[in-house]
C-alpha cells in the first residue's frame, strides 16, 4: 500500500487548540472530585431506583374476585409493569404464589390458588416472559396477609404474590 502523509486541516487544528482551556492544577483536582461525586450520586440514584423497582415488583400483588381466577382488567397494568421489570432483569427467576381468602373451604381453595397463579403465569408468558423463569405454587387459604374476618381483609388475601427465587 502507498504511504501517504495524513494531511490535517489547519483550521480544525486551530479550533481544537482554541477549545483547550488552561487551568491550574488545583482547579483540575476540584473538577475531578466534583465529577466523581456526581458519578457517585448518579450511581446511588440508579441503585435506589433499582431497589424501588424491585420492591415494587415484590410488593404489589395481583387482586382477584371471590371464587374467581380470572385476570381483572384493573390488574393488567400491574402485570405489564411486572413483565417490564422481568425483561429489565433477565437473570431473575420468580415464584408466583396463589392465595385465597378463608371463606371458602380448605381443599377447594388449594385448587383455586393454583388456578390464580397459573393464569398470572400464562398472562406473563403472553407478554413475552419465558415460562422457565416462573414457578407457581398455591397456598390456598393457609397464608392470609390479614387474618381478620371482614371484606377488607378478604379482598387483600385474594391475591397472587411474587417472590424472587
Amino acid at each position, binding site marked *: 500500500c502507498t504511504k501517504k502523509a495524513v494531511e490535517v486541516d489547519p483550521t480544525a487544528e486551530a479550533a481544537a487548540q482554541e477549545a483547550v482551556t488552561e487551568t491550574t492544577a488545583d482547579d483540575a483536582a476540584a473538577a475531578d472530585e466534583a465529577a466523581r461525586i456526581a458519578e457517585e450520586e448518579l450511581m446511588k440514584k440508579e441503585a435506589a431506583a433499582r431497589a424501588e423497582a424491585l420492591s415494587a415488583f415484590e410488593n404489589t400483588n395481583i387482586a382477584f374476585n371471590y371464587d374467581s*381466577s380470572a385476570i381483572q382488567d384493573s390488574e393488567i397494568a400491574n402485570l405489564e409493569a411486572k413483565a417490564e421489570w422481568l425483561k429489565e432483569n433477565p437473570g431473575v427467576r420468580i415464584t408466583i404464589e396463589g392465595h385465597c381468602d378463608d371463606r371458602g373451604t*380448605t*381443599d*377447594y381453595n*388449594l*385448587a383455586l390458588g393454583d388456578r390464580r397463579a397459573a393464569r398470572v403465569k400464562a398472562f406473563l408468558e403472553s407478554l413475552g416472559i419465558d415460562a422457565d423463569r416462573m414457578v*407457581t*405454587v*398455591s397456598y390456598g387459604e393457609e397464608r392470609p396477609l390479614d387474618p381478620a374476618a371482614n371484606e377488607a381483609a378478604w379482598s387483600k388475601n385474594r391475591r397472587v404474590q411474587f417472590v424472587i427465587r
Partner: protein
Amino acid sequence: EERVQLRITNPFENKTPVAIPAFKVMGSSAEEQHLAQKAVTLLQETLAFTGYFRMVNPEAFLEDPSQTGITEQDIHFNRWRSSGAELLVTGSLTVSGQAIIGDFYLYDIFRQKSLFGVRFRGAGDPETNLRPLILKLADKIMVTYSGKHGYFGSRIAFVSTSTTGTKEIWASAFDGHNPVQLSRNNAITLTPSWSPDGTKITYTSYVKKKPDIYVQGAWAGARRDLVTAKGTTNITPAWLPDGKNMAASLTIDGDQAIYLLTEKGKIRKRLTRKWSKWGIDLSPVFSPSGDRMAFVSKRSGTPQIYVKHLKSGRIERLTFDGRYNTSPAWSPTGDQIAYAGFKEGNFDIHVIDARGGRPMQLTRNTGDNETPSWSPDGSLIVFSSNRRGSSSIYVMNAYGTDQRQLVSLPGEQTAPVWSPNLTQ
C-alpha cells in the same frame, strides 16, 4: 321424575332407657372400687354416644344389684320397670394381680328375661385393660340390641394446628379418647383420608414447600412415603374401596383434574375430562361398592357436587341449592352423601340422597360447619365447627340431633375423617 324423599322420622329422637347400676366388686380394695366406677361411667358414655340409648337417672333405682345380686333370679323386674328402664346391665369385676375379669348380664325389663350373660377377661394391667373390656361389652350390647356390631374399634383422624404455625394429622378413638399426633411433617398438612383396611392414612402436605400427596402408617411417627409430587398442586387423595388404587386431584395436564393412580404415584388414567384450561375438579370419594365417584367441580360456574358412574362414564350434578357445595362424604350404607353447603353467610352440613333429591340441612345458626365424615355404620357424622370461636371437632347423629364436641385440644382442629371399624 319423582325425587326420593329422605326419611323424615328421626330414630334417634326416642332413645331406649338403660339402667346401669354400680358393678359388684369381689375384693374391697380402693383400686377395685375406682375401677368399677370407671367401668360403669365408660359403659354409660359409650352407649349414650351411639345416640340409641339414654341413661336412667340412678336416683330412680329401687334396687342395688351390687348388694342384692346380679343374676336373673336376683332381679326384681317390676322395680326396674317402675324406675323407667327398658334395659338393665348388671356386672361384677374381679381384679387379680395382672388380670381383670368382668361378668356381665343384659336384661330385657318388659320381657323379664336375660338377653345374655358373658365373661370378659383382660390380661395385663387392669387400668389399661378396663377400656377394651368395656368396649367389648358395649359391642355385645349393640349386636344384641340392633343386630349390628358397634364401631368402638374405629378412630377419627383430623388436622390440628401446632404452636409453630404448621398443621399435623392427629387421631383419637371414636369417642375422642386419647388424641395423638400421627404425622411429624413440620409443615402444613391437610385433607387426611383412611385406607379401607384402616392401617394407613393419606394426605396433602407442604413438606417440600408445595402441596404433594403422601401415605403414612396410621400410628404415631410412622414412616411417610411420597405418592406423587408431579403437579404444581397435588391434593385430596382417597383410596378406592378395593384398597389398591387411589384417586386424587392433580395439575399434571394444565387444569386441576382427578386421576386414578397407584400408591406409588403411577398414573392409571384421567377420571374427569378437561372442560376448561382453568378447570377445577377435586375431592373424589367413592360409593362403598366402588361403582360411583362423587367429586366437586366448577364446571357449572360455581363449586358443586357431581356423581360419576364409573362404568358408563355418565356424570350427574347432585347439588343445585346455593353457590358453594364441597367436601362430599359417601355414607357406608351407600344411599346418602353428606357435604358442606354455603347459604345465608355460613357453611352447614347437608345430606342428600346419592341418587339426587332435596337436601336435608343438619346444622344451622352455629357458625361454619364443614368436612363431614360418616361413622362406619352410617349412624353418626363427625364434622368441624367454629361455633365456639376456633374450629374443633364435633359429632352428631345422621339426623343432625345430639350435636356435641368430640375433642378439645389447643389451636384449631379441622377435616375430621372416620376410620373403618377395626377390631379392638
